[in-house]
């Protein structure tokens, strides 16, 4: 196994607050890694730094051995880094199909004129795009609702659509920010299934989650953070038994679960 993502000495200050402090970790290609920690621990900030939505105060982000600090988010996506957002972000006024098409078209976008009817390979391009979109919708089980406006989808479907849009960019690394927050147990189990299937296709996963039992079942490797610092790292068992982790989660009923 090789190293897909590695961050070293990553830090982010917001005014006087150290949201992330001197954080280092790396992710093996093909793994499912969990990033856990109490609310405000800095998990979302780590995502923002890794994906380029925010600039680190210090530290380095490497993807496939290449330093990507200077790249804007859309260029990191083109390298194969994709993410979802903690609060579902969709093209809410567009159909489910159009949402996925936009994720697909961004990366494989040919020249402008190939979209002109009668010129270039318009029909072939469009048919190929639609075929891949429906394949993806099948994969996340949203084909039946493909013509529904995203804002009218039930919550669970909206979360799946968020994942589908990210998947549409053909990522090597998929980063999911609290994918099962607010879901009922049935929806949670479905999402876990989906994440496993994505991983089986060769996509590396980094997942932030609050639901401890969810993370413990899903992830082979876990990184625990608190106050922007790494507390512990290892297998679910190791992390669960770590005294510092237990202290950080003291009173958090999820640990007992």
């Amino acid at each position, binding site marked *: 196994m090789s190293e897909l993502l590695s961050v070293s000495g990553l830090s982010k200050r917001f005014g006087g607050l150290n949201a992330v402090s001197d954080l280092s970790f790396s992710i093996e290609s093909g793994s499912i890694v969990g990033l856990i920690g109490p609310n405000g621990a800095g998990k979302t900030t780590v995502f923002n730094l890794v994906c380029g939505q925010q600039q680190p105060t210090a530290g380095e982000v490497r993807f496939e051995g290449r330093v990507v600090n200077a790249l804007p988010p*859309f260029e990191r*996506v083109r390298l194969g880094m994709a993410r979802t957002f903690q609060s579902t*972000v969709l093209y809410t006024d567009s159909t489910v199909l*159009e949402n996925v098409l936009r994720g697909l078209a*961004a*990366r494989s976008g040919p020249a402008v*004129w190939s*979209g002109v009817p009668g010129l270039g390979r318009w029909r072939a391009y469009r048919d190929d795009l639609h075929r891949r979109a429906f394949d993806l919708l099948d994969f996340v089980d949203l084909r039946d609702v493909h013509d529904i406006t995203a804002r009218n989808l039930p919550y669970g479907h909206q979360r799946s659509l968020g994942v589908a849009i990210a998947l549409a960019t053909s990522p090597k690394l998929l980063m999911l920010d609290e994918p099962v927050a607010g879901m009922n147990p049935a929806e949670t189990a479905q999402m876990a299934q989906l994440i496993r299937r994505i991983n089986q296709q060769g996509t590396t996963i980094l997942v932030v989650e609050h639901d401890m039992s969810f993370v413990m079942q899903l992830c082979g490797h876990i990184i625990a953070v608190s106050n922007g610092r790494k507390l512990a790292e290892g297998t679910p068992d190791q992390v669960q038994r770590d005294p510092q982790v237990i202290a950080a989660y003291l009173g958090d009923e999820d640990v007992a679960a």
Partner: protein
Amino acid sequence: MRARSSRYALAIVIVAAVVGAWLVPSFVHGNFWLHIFDMMLINAVLALGLNIILKTGQVSLAHAGFMAIGAYASAQLTLKLALPFLAAFLLSGILAAAVALLLGRVILRLKGVYFILFTFALNEFIFLVSKDAVALTGGNTGLVGIKAPTLPFVAGSLQTKAQFYYLALAVFLLALAFLAALYRSPFGRAMDAVRESEQLAEATGYDPMRVKLIAFVIGSFLAGLGGSLSAHFLRYIAPFNFTFWESVNFLLMNIIGGSFSLAGPIIGALILTPLPEFLRDYLLWQQFLYGLILMLFMRFLPDGVTSAIGMSVRAVVDWVRTPRRKGAPVAAETQP
């Protein structure tokens, strides 16, 4: 089957509209109405130019400013440098586009109301320059004696309003065809993505800045062309042609017609162009009326007239297609 027949219907409507538009000067003879039809086409080109900027989610109030750049450039290039109309016309579009390219890199970083405010100030700035840079613009007096357009292989110049109409129609149709192709291309999808969620677009591989910049440059190019057309049509331009209210006018055309389709700005131009002619005696009321219209549309028809037309057409089509044979089992429809 349904998609195909509706495509034929659309093709027929488009051909009929183009033929109808082409025949206008054969049926409309009064100068008053010909003047209005010419202005409708010029305004439609300008409103289309604003439409592509709106499509990326940027509400520009500087559109009349870019129109001014095109108008003054075209007038002076033909008056002072004696360039042929067609060269001046194209150069005026390119100049407006170049200014948009330079400014866009900076101002497109502004979002929402900040962008609106800045473009408002930009329009005022261009307006002031047009008043004060007397050597270039003729100041408050404006520029008179601008020549009627000439075309290669066409003898004489397009002196009459009927002759000018065909030029304006050709420019309008070219602009429309170009935008229609662009909106259907992958770039059209990119513009929709950036408008709907810049955050998501950026996180899925689109470069929002580049998308917005290209749209702003194309939109300003069309504004420059529209400015050139109006200069050579009216043969006289002055600062009052390019006030902030003109920018509002182009925005209103998009809002009233509906900014989410290309039909919107065209319908908006058709509706709003004749209005001032009929409101001439009530100039004071005009701005008040525009404000009222704007508010009513925002409240009751936020997606404009085209959305209402689209909805009623769809309702009629659905009604026509709904089988109403009594007792006919619905399931029979699905059998092969």
